């Protein structure tokens, strides 16, 4: 388990997202009212960046075909997406936000 610093918390205000590259592929980090979540960035339906989408509460809507995913669980909430995306462990150290890119998994 290796946590890597991605950003400082004030770089991603509530409701915003950050896209970052990793060995596990692109990962999207979201700030949901001060709580941070990391998921696979690529939409499981349309191969598009979810960090580019619209975040409402803990649901991210893809801008291409309006598929929604829960950023807590990675689960697909609406059609046309049917497959989940992976979630990654997130840790806070002081003001820093870290992600364990080796720990990507599908939620149970």
């Amino acid at each position, binding site marked *: 388990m290796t946590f890597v610093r991605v950003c400082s918390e004030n770089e991603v205000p509530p409701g915003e997202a950050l896209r970052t590259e990793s060995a596990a592929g692109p990962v999207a980090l979201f700030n949901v009212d001060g709580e941070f979540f990391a998921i696979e960035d690529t939409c499981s*339906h*349309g*191969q*598009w960046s979810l960090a*580019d*989408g619209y975040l409402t509460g803990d649901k991210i809507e893809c*801008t*291409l*075909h*309006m598929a929604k995913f829960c950023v807590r669980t990675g689960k697909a909430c609406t059609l*046309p997406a049917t497959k989940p995306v992976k979630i990654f462990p997130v840790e806070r150290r002081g003001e820093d936000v870290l992600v364990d890119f080796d720990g990507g998994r599908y939620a149970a």
Partner: protein
Amino acid sequence: MMTVIIRRNEKRSPNVDLSDVFDEQAGTISPVIYSDPDIYQMELERIFSRSWLFIAHETHIPKAGDYFSTYMAEDPVIAVRQKDGGVRVFLNQCRHRGMKICRTDSGNAKAFTCTYHGWAYDIGGNLVQVPLEEQSFPGLDKSKWGARQARVESYKGLIFATWNEEAPALAEYLGDFRYYLDTVLDASEGGTEAIGGIVKWIIPCNWKFAAEQFCSDMYHGTMSHTSPITAAITEEFPALDPTALSGFQFRASNGGHGTGFFEAPAGTSWGFRIVQAAGLVEGFDPEAAHSRQAAHLGDKRGTIFSQHLSIFPNFSVFNGASTARVWHPRGPNEIEVWAFGLVDKAASDAEKEQVRLMTLRTFSAAGTWEQDDGENWVEVQRVLRGHEARQTKFNIQMGAGATRNEGADFPGTISNAYAEEAARGLYAQWFKLMSDEEGTSSKRGAYVHAAE
């Protein structure tokens, strides 16, 4: 097995005899050009697909991803601000089965996705995603199936586009008309900005009635607009005597653009705008506004007021009321008017409010002056339902032979304000393009202008 091939020439063959519809020497025009459906279809090809067409003001789409849905004649297009600051204009039509890829008026977008089958385009109009691509379109070269791109250029805040790859640069297309266009677009440091929304309405009339009037017609004012002029007269702002006003009309040496204006008697340049807005907005200093514009223009143009103008074919401004608009053609018998307010960026909030109120009351869907114009155009169009009426030529001789060059400090082909020289210029350009099957007259090198 027999193969049937149906060919449909992309260019409409002229099945209409145009030889007699406009005669500049005789000063006659045949009204079939306002009513004939075949002539209208030819216009879409020979006028609108060859000319530079107004799209939007730069301030309508300031940020990356900002878009504005509009039309180039009957073709729906989207204008989008790119991340590099440039603007792209592309056909609002999915390359798969032709659905609109953007169905809203304006906003900020990260992508445009067709709501029919889901083909998705980025803000540059490139096809970026096709649903079920591996199963449905294996091997599809998406780079070949982006939205149709138009050529785009700007002039002092106004964005134009054309489908004509061989059209001259926009500045060359505007030519010597720029000197008079700058009275509107470059009258203060920083140029102009658009205010208010886009006001849209439909008028059942041919697009050329509107374009021609703004190009050339000061003449109708004292007759058609008597009622809103009378209603607004006050002791402080009495009616101006039209016979005592000095005014001029300019015909662009090429391209069909035209304008007309009065020279303001001392102290009256803002009077019209104030009285038509039903009063002076608190904090607005008309003298300061006049001085700012006169100093920036730096020549005789500082005296211009009540200026009307048209850029060929279908974009017009009446600067007397700070209104800019496109006349989108909708068949020979109908237009959609898309209008917005145009103010100097350097203007104070009070000045902008003065302009907004004035434009709203005079030249907008419910504006008093607007009703007068629409009523005329609609009635003329209704008369043209008559067979005999369509065969009866109109007189377009006003001021013929009375033009001069470099008149009264105003350069170019100049007439009295009450003339039809600019209208003859508009119809000459129309006739030239319509009679030209190959479109040579719309290409680079065909726009020769008088020395500037």
